């Protein structure tokens, strides 16, 4: 039987990163992926990633996927597509279904990087056409160019629900509401604010009661729930929707690890049944590793590092690198991973309802958590929002980033040094009171959370200019008249486009500048025409 030194199962962020790491140390690596295109979930991630430069922050997911593939191929990694690993048997035997055959192959090491699948929530009507997973909607839109529907109800306010809701709007759909049974929004505040200012209402402590329609979804009824998840009678609301997207979490697809005989555990924090692994991502079977979502549900950025860690561990145990090199690499990677695992949304803090202050001591906006947007009174308290006095001096960046999340591209985006975060990338960004902003707009375009605006209260007598990130087509043109919306998506009134900046370096995020009455300088945050 043919034997490989390393078989990687799954060509997503974890699998490709593992392959790259091992191949860079001289190993022969083969990667099997059941899809016709590699990249896993990265392929359909059209938004910019968070983290730091090392974590590929500011880059759009699909680009990261393309880069990983290129790097892997350049290192001689064999990536086999349309290859389904149907089982792992005793003695690390892998069976692959490829080209109408089953291939029996063995490996000295196996890295399982098979990712996760979407959870579902059943309700009357959930088997009708029109009820789909949020991930499935993303695949339809971003891979196949199909609109999943027209009027969408998003169930789930975690990062997936929030990000996909935004992408649905980009695809031309109308998101009628985002609901969550929990009393607070589960994902990053900035993902919520993006859609809130476009007019998407949030209904927290609401669940879906029924989807109705004769042959497909024609509408849905949502209902409020109390603290014990019991429906409150009389609180039903009918929504006119034709599509219901379910974004209620992911479960690791760990079947192969179980089949291989790894010790498994049921770990709700990690998303479900996962193989028990040590810090090198090695399972209970020596030589079998698990990296990425399959070992615990996290982000693609963590998956990539876990891939690296298992890749370097395999390289070490196969004697392609020595002990000191291994120790150094592992240290570097685990520190990078720790950086990502800090902040308000870290594992320790997950689900905590008692957090009221950021690490610096600022109030965490409850309005943001419950409605998806900051109130005007709240926003001015944060270090990214300069004082009225400073605003009166002229154009300044206004950074409405109010939660500790690991992210720092804004720091390097400003060539004038206006923005500081420091080495702890979960720190809230601080805008220097002595800021000498030149209004280039690079910070606006660099913020993956689209939380940075330029506000020029000296634009013209009685008027302010607001620059905002804009990623919708068709792009407005200079001179276009429309309306300005506030953070809650409420129409403030008439506004006019005075500039649209589209630069390659901004990577698809246009900077749109509108002219609004001065009183709206700290209110207007979106434009519709």
């Amino acid at each position: 039987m043919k034997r490989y030194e390393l078989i990687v199962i799954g060509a997503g962020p974890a699998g490709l990163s593992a392959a790259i790491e091992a191949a860079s140390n001289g190993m022969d690596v083969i990667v099997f992926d059941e899809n016709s295109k590699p990249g896993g979930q990265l392929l359909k991630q059209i938004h910019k990633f968070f983290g730091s430069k090392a974590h590929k922050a500011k880059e759009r997911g699909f680009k990261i996927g393309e880069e990983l593939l290129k790097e892997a191929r350049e290192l001689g990694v064999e990536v086999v597509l349309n290859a389904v690993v149907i089982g792992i048997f005793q003695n690390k035997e892998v069976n692959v279904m490829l080209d109408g055959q089953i291939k029996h192959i063995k490996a000295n090491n196996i890295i399982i990087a098979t990712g996760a699948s979407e959870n579902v929530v059943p309700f009357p009507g959930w088997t009708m056409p029109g009820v789909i997973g949020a991930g499935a909607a993303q695949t339809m839109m971003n891979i196949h160019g199909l609109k999943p529907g027209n009027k969408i109800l998003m169930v789930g306010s975690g990062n997936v629900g929030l990000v996909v809701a935004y992408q649905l709007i980009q695809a031309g759909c109308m998101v009628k509401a985002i609901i969550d049974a929990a009393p607070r929004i589960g994902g990053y505040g900035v993902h919520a604010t993006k859609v809130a200012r476009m007019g998407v209402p949030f209904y927290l402590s609401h669940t879906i009661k029924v989807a109705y329609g004769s042959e497909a979804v024609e509408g849905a009824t949502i209902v409020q729930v109390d603290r014990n998840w019991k429906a409150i009678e009389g609180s039903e609301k009918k929504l006119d929707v034709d599509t219901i997207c379910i974004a209620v979490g992911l479960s690791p697809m760990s079947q192969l690890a179980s089949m291989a005989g790894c010790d498994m555990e049921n770990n709700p924090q990690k998303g479900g049944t996962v193989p028990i692994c040590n810090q090198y991502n090695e399972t209970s079977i020596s030589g079998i590793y698990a990296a990425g979502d399959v070992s615990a549900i996290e982000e693609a950025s963590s998956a990539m590092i876990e891939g690296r860690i298992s890749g370097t561990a395999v390289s070490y145990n196969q004697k392609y690198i020595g002990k000191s090199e291994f120790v150094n690499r592992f240290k570097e990677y685990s520190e990078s991973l720790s950086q990502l695992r800090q902040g308000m949304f870290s594992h320790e803090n997950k689900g905590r309802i008692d957090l009221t202050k950021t690490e610096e001591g600022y109030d965490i906006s409850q309005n943001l958590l419950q409605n998806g947007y900051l109130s005007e009174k709240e926003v001015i308290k944060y270090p990214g929002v300069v004082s009225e006095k400073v605003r009166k001096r002229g154009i300044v960046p206004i950074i409405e980033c109010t939660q500790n999340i690991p992210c720092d591209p804004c720091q390097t985006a400003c060539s004038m040094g206006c923005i500081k975060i420091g080495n702890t990338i979960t720190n809230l960004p601080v805008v220097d009171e002595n800021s000498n902003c030149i209004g280039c707009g690079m910070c606006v375009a660099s913020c993956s959370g689209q939380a940075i605006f330029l506000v020029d209260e000296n634009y013209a007598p009685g008027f302010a200019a607001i620059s905002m990130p804009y990623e919708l087509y068709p792009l407005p043109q200079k001179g276009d008249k429309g309306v300005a919306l506030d953070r809650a998506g409420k129409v403030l009134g008439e506004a006019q486009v005075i500039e649209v900046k589209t630069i390659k370096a901004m990577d698809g995020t246009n900077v749109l500048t509108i002219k609004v009455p001065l009183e709206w300088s700290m209110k207007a945050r979106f434009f519709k025409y």
Partner: protein
Amino acid sequence: MQMMELINKGGDRVIKSDVIIVGGGVISCAIAYNLAKRNIKVIVIEKDHIGAGASSRNGGGVRQSARDPRELPLAIYAIKNLWPYLSKELGVEIEYHKKGNFRLGKTPEHLKILENVVNQGLDAGLELRLLEKDELRKLCPYISNEVVNASYCPTDGHANPMKTTLAFYKNALKLGTKFITGETVKSIILAKGKVSGVKTETNVYEAPEVVLAAGYESKAIANTVGIDIAMRKELIEAIITEAQPQMFSEMIGTAESDFYGHQTEHGSFVFGGSTGLEPFLSDEVKTINKSITAPYICRAVLKYFPIMSSMNIIRTWSGFMDIMADKVPVLSKVKEVPGLTLACGFSGHGFGISPAVGQLISELIINGKPSISLDAFRYDRLKPKG
């Protein structure tokens, strides 16, 4: 009221009953049901969950043909008197179908085997005949051209072993049988030379009658009172297809014994088979699958039913047979250990006779007079060659 009581390990409980049955498979549940019907207090102790062993890992065959002649009376009795009425009696659809059994042959050697099967069956009063190619193709249009003969027993059939086991369990539970799962019986306790109960890792259960119906695990328990059971373990594997439109109602087997199976009520096909390497691979503890078996079974099936080539397999499973040295079970009181009864070693064909075994063992325990003689299944029947 709680649906289950957690039994604390180290609880030092002593529970008394009329009968203790070790093992929670179809045999135990059938025996328990029959005893409970007569108001006898039974405790069933199972180390895993109900039906975790061979009861949920067999081909579902309910057949008489090609059985060892010693088993035939039990099989005939079960099919005539018990199987057709079980769904109604137990209130659970156990999917019993009496639509016949084909044993297929391609070569002259196969024909000899089939002739033997037919003659043995006829001798025992069974309806059996040998089919030539044309008649076979009329009854079974899906077979390949290479199949030239088959033995056909119209009164054989199949049922759903998982549901049958759980149906017996459900009814025994309703009739007052105590079922304890997650506890392992370690030894039999004697008092003054007679059975007085069993000991688990943590508790003692007292009863004057103990039945060992724990498949291969019965051996170690019987050893604790100086009784050996001449059986070994062997892995079997099976493949399951997606649901298909109804094609076959018969049970299928081959003279070559390379595969067997049937189409379930659900529509999926269940096929079992052996590569021949299994006896050498059986010191497994867990029911794992070997990578060579599913491909092998597919090749075997396709040689007889090439029409199935595009059917999708969605699952494989494996289990252990407890194979007696002479391939029929031990169904017997153990004279030298009064109170001990053995009901194990079904050698891969226990399911079809399970309702009969349930009745007969319960009769054996109640008054020592089973409706069909169990003499051929005595625990001490095995003798050396010369």
